[in-house]
């Protein structure tokens, strides 16, 4: 064998052995160690930040959005995750561009529907209520988009508008450290707070009656 071939062969053996060593170290030992420590120290956060209702039933994750269609609940943004939206097995955005006719048609339909279903809402529809998020699982609304829906929720629950607004304002989180990200309201937590304060919402409309669960 020539000297070059011998050297290359030696390098090949080293490459193969280091491939295995790094695989064991960074591909197996490291994730197992992180899993062990994370479960030990931050079990509930590391396991999905699950939320229970008053009866102790798991109704979702604080971090992952879900669809709401009943008029007595806050409605989330449109979701592009999966066929019907809000499918955590198919996260993602619409990927519709800024000159997309499809996007325009979708938004136009949502605007008309929302205006019809929110006759007492103040002003034009806040953008987030007709735009889908990047994840399709956005758990939040801006305070403005939540307050915009308050008249509908108040009339569905037969309550004064102020009481609904008070719950929303209480649940509003500011920017992180005062300047990172945006102020926001967690839709699931607010809806749980509504149920907790005012009793369960009237049952949702039958599936398909409104489009709020889908696009």
């Amino acid at each position, binding site marked *: 064998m020539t000297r070059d071939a011998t050297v*290359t062969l030696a390098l090949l053996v*080293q*490459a193969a*052995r*280091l491939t295995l*060593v790094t*695989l064991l*170290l*960074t*591909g197996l030992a*490291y*994730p197992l160690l*992180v*899993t062990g*420590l*994370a*479960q030990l120290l*931050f079990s509930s*956060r*590391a*396991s*999905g930040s699950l939320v229970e209702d008053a009866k102790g039933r798991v109704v*979702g*994750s604080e*971090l992952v959005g*879900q*669809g*709401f269609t009943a008029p007595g609940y806050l409605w989330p*943004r449109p979701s592009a995750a999966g066929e019907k939206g809000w499918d955590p*097995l*198919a996260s*993602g*955005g*619409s*990927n*519709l*561009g*800024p*000159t*997309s*006719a499809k*996007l325009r048609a979708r*938004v136009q339909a949502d*605007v008309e529907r929302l205006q019809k279903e929110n006759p007492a809402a103040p002003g034009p*529809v*806040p*953008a*987030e209520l007709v735009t889908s*998020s*990047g*994840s399709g699982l956005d758990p*939040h609304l*801006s305070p*403005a988009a939540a307050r915009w829906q308050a008249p509908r929720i108040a009339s569905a629950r037969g309550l004064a508008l102020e009481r609904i607004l008070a719950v929303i304002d209480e649940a509003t989180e500011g920017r992180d*450290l005062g*300047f*990172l*990200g*945006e102020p926001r309201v967690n839709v699931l937590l607010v809806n*749980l707070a509504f149920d907790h304060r005012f009793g369960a919402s009237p049952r949702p409309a039958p599936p398909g009656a409104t489009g709020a669960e889908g696009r």
Partner: protein
Amino acid sequence: MSTAAILQAIAFVAVIALLTRPLGAYLYRVYEARPPFPATLGRLERLCYRLSGVDPSTEQGWVAYAVSLLLFSALSMLGTYAILRAQAGLPWNPQGFAGVAPDLAFNTAASFTTNTNWQSYSGESTMSYLSQSAGLAWHNFTSAAAGMGVALALARGLTRHGGPDSPRTLGNFWVDLTRSIVYVLLPSSLLIALFFASQGVLQTLAPSLELTTLEGVKQVLALGPVASQEVIKQLGTNGGGFFNANSAHPFENPTPLTNFIQVVMIFVIPAALTWTYGRMARSQRQGWALFGAMLALFLAGYGVITWAEHRPNPALAGLAVDQSAGNMEGKEVRFGVDATALFATATTDASCGAVNGMHDSFNPLGGLVPLVNIQLGEVIFGGVGAGLYGILVFVILTVFIAGLMVGRTPELLGKKIEPREMKLATIYILIFPLLVLPLTAWAAVSPAAGAVANAGPHGLSELLYAFTSGAGNNGSAFAGLDATKPFWTIGLGVDMLLGRFFMLLPALAIAGSMVGKRAVEPGPGTFPTDGWLFGALLVAVILVVGALTWFPALTLGPIVEHYLAGAGKVF
């Protein structure tokens, strides 16, 4: 620009600038002096050498360094291909996913080996936990470490005292690889992963969880060991998300605070490497000149995206929608425009490619910036390692052009730049457009490429972005492609491999030819490479090369789309 956007930029730049020196000094100690923590990390390092039969005291010339890197990349790519194909029979597959199809497994293995992390699959519905951790996150460590190795080798080639008697070696690839993992990537990933887990990033081996929502609908939560992968995906400028939605997914990036840290993690090592380079060059000003040039280009990109995305989405013009929050299609409420703009700028300045919002839905000029950032060569801090060797190639080009202007033989750090280095630098710079432009043209006419989701100029932008992202080893996407078609899986796989290795090999060859050159003392006619003037010239060269190469293609994509959108046109 809003106050929050400005505060965010100030805080970000301050954090990066403050970390650059200490981390840069730490990196210098790890690679070029006596590594720290001998009793713990040192023991782990020595164990790695013992298990792999590596003698850390030997050094390699550029050819042996390159061969080692290629062999390691080839074997680890095969390893991932095998894991993905066989995942059905391997452990940690609670959802019982089938083996990944051959062309998709090739595409994915190539993607992660090249530090691209282009994803033609959805993690939550395709990859077992073992495939994610061992098949993919493994490469997040090794491909980043390999990139750091090439950067160090080139820096050594430029800064070592050459001469007739000096050895023409550039270090040892195995040592650089091992040290990058053991001293840098692994310990920091471990700590930050735990912090992320405390903020709500998942870290569990439990199977998906089925629950009933408040309104009585079934919802299945995809779970998994996310945090451990999330941190190295950012820190190694890899970018491949555990979930399809990447860092937009609340289980990957739950709060604006985790988001800020994720963006810091993209830049922190590339920024620190400029300091390490200055230390190796025995002149910190050399490093800060690079840092300054990068910072200027970063701020320009951030400014444009923030401005563009605060404007309303033109497709919604005239509808009864309050767009005061800016263009929110594809963005998360918790991040809004500012935090999405910061992430999008950094992820494409570097070769990261993670996203916290969908670039495809950006306004035309907002989407132009990520594309241009990649096309400038990802030298704005750039990938871990890849950013430094990329900008050093531009430094050589700049020195050459400056030399032509004043009529002197160009020098860098006292070493002459000669035709061989210039040829290699030219290859490095040309290979990128030579891959991207013909492949994009082919995709635009070939029926095998399938349809794009968006019609009109935006469709062309989607094709251009895909091959740019692939060859640039970025991995972010405009999406909208039928990416599981063999045209894309194979085409992008080849695009990524050629983009990675045909840029990295010329960089190593330059290192090999520079290392033996004797450095002469600077004279009165020497063009200094460490001041504002040089930084400005470097920025100008990067922009001119980028503009000459890409402007025609960009005109047909995002630029014409901007004007059509302004005229109220939709497709």
